[in-house]
């Protein structure tokens, strides 16, 4: 075995090692592979930073044309509305991202990566973690747009809220990649599922309008939506208030999405 690998090849050699060392080496490799995949995914973002605006078109339209219709009954409407728009942007951006993988499946680079020694999990993890970067850029843009108006910026709360949204983005992005893999080069399938899921999820999270006055069945459905808890907590945090239970619920919602997404995504990638 070793003679073959050493024959002018730079391939990773496999040597027997104690189980604990072997496990650490395997984890180290997954980490290195994940960083490799993530930095590769980020390159197009650095080359064309304006590309992050694509996922923001709809949220910005809502911010400009829908927010002014909201009554300023509980203080500033913008203060209430902006966190929802940030969450909407995360959801949009992260759920689009599987389309990029589908392009790579069609053009061939995904296949090339499958034949490389990169571990299957890192192919998913690197992509999912990458999603936090455009999400941060988008959030910064929205806050920069909203702050001159009747929106108060509470930096510490924003940072914690963004961390919560990052978990949410990672989970949604993973599911989007799993959907891309499952759609197997049929874009209509991907977009049909994505569009079908996204708007009910947004409306049932109380992103556009408060759910308090809604009928019981609607509130019951929204209680099942992890995004609702994320949006509630982000509203608190962006407003600079720190209700421990709301924040804990928000992180729980984010974690549920992240864990579920990564599980589905890694499984999907390992099967490809």
């Amino acid at each position, binding site marked *: 075995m070793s003679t073959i690998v050493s024959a002018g090849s730079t391939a*990773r050699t496999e040597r027997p090692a104690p189980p604990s060392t072997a496990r650490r080496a395997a984890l180290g490799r997954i980490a290195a592979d994940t960083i*490799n995949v993530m930095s590769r995914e980020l*390159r197009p973002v650095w080359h064309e930073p304006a590309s992050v605006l694509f996922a923001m078109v709809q949220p910005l339209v809502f911010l400009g044309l829908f927010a002014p219709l909201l009554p300023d009954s509980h203080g500033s409407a913008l203060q209430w509305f902006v966190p929802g728009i940030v969450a909407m942007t995360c959801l949009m951006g992260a759920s689009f991202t599987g389309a990029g993988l589908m392009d790579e499946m069609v*053009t*061939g*680079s995904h296949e*090339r990566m499958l034949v490389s020694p990169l571990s299957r999990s890192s192919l998913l993890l690197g992509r999912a973690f990458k999603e936090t970067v455009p999400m941060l850029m988008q959030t910064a843009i929205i806050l920069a747009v909203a702050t001159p108006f009747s929106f108060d910026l509470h930096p510490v709360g924003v940072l914690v809220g963004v961390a919560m949204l990052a978990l949410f983005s990672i989970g949604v992005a993973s599911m989007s990649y799993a959907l891309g893999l499952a759609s197997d080069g049929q874009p209509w399938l991907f977009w049909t599922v994505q569009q079908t899921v996204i708007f009910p999820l947004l409306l049932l999270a109380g992103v556009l309008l408060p759910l308090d006055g809604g009928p019981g069945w609607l509130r019951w459905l929204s209680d099942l939506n992890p995004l609702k808890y994320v949006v509630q907590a982000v509203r608190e945090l962006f407003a600079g208030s720190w209700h421990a239970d709301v924040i804990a619920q928000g992180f729980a919602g984010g974690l549920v999405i992240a864990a579920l997404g990564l599980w589905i995504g890694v499984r999907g990638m390992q099967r490809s």
Partner: protein
Amino acid sequence: MNTTDPVIVTEALTRTFTSRKQTVEAVRGLDLEIRRGELVALLGPNGAGKSTTLRMLTTLLAPTSGGARVAGFDVVDAQAAVRGAIGYVGQGNGAGHQQHGRDELVSQGRAHGLSRRDARARADELIADLGLASVSDRKVATLSGGQRRRLDIAMGLVHRPEVLFLDEPSTGLDPQNRANLQAQVERLHAETGNTIVLTTHYLEEADALAERVVVIDHGRVIADDSAYRLKSGLGDRITLAFADVSGAEVAATRAARLPGADVTRDGSRVVARIAHGNELVGALVHDLHGAGHAPVGIEVARPTLDDVFLELTGRSLREANESPTAQDENDDSREGAAA
């Protein structure tokens, strides 16, 4: 390093696909041994099972039964080791269309465990070697087909693989780029001495490039030899045209006396297939001239691999490529991706 030990061995390698409750045997019990340093072409029409074979050898697809070892590693039990030892240039583009070529080369090198510095140096080397200097810092989507193909090959070579697999490397290229690509592959093989396995349905390509041609049809190997020997078994085709039928009749009789000749006459034309026909045609024409039946037209065609395929299967390769089995391979690759 022993240059004669096999670097690829398959044993009864089999892959079936089930689509719409129909089982299609894409590869049926393939036994193949490829030695270190060989340049082998798997030749066959669309749907013959070439790509399915390659996908099994590169760990993209699990065999239904049977097995294979590549570079000493089992393609099912030691996938990671196989992936580390091989280079793969698929039918698509290895470099992402939204990426820059140089970045992709570095990232591929890192994936194969090179240090950052080594990966950069190797990328520079390949960029210079494959003439990509002017385009390596551009978005891959903006490159021409030929440039992208050269980049794909560079991607497959980053880690100096022991075995390089090329899946229909010249499909979709214009003739000039195809010739260019063949020259690159030949040069690589000459310089590195590495094993190269490519699939093709272009006879000219298999003929020009490969030392060894494995002809595959309906998932089975139907011939396996050098292109020269495959063809020389068939003999040259001599076509003689005469001003009248009687001349052709005389010619047919005389040509039939040549050992091993297979002669057919169609009106005033005679077609004879004879081993070493190119050497015998002079004497034959001289003889006919002496008999008062000088031919008005002479054509000597060396056999092509298409003739070989026709002889082996009763179909010409061009026909086979257009036949309905071409549909199978499309189905195969889609299911292969889903599996």
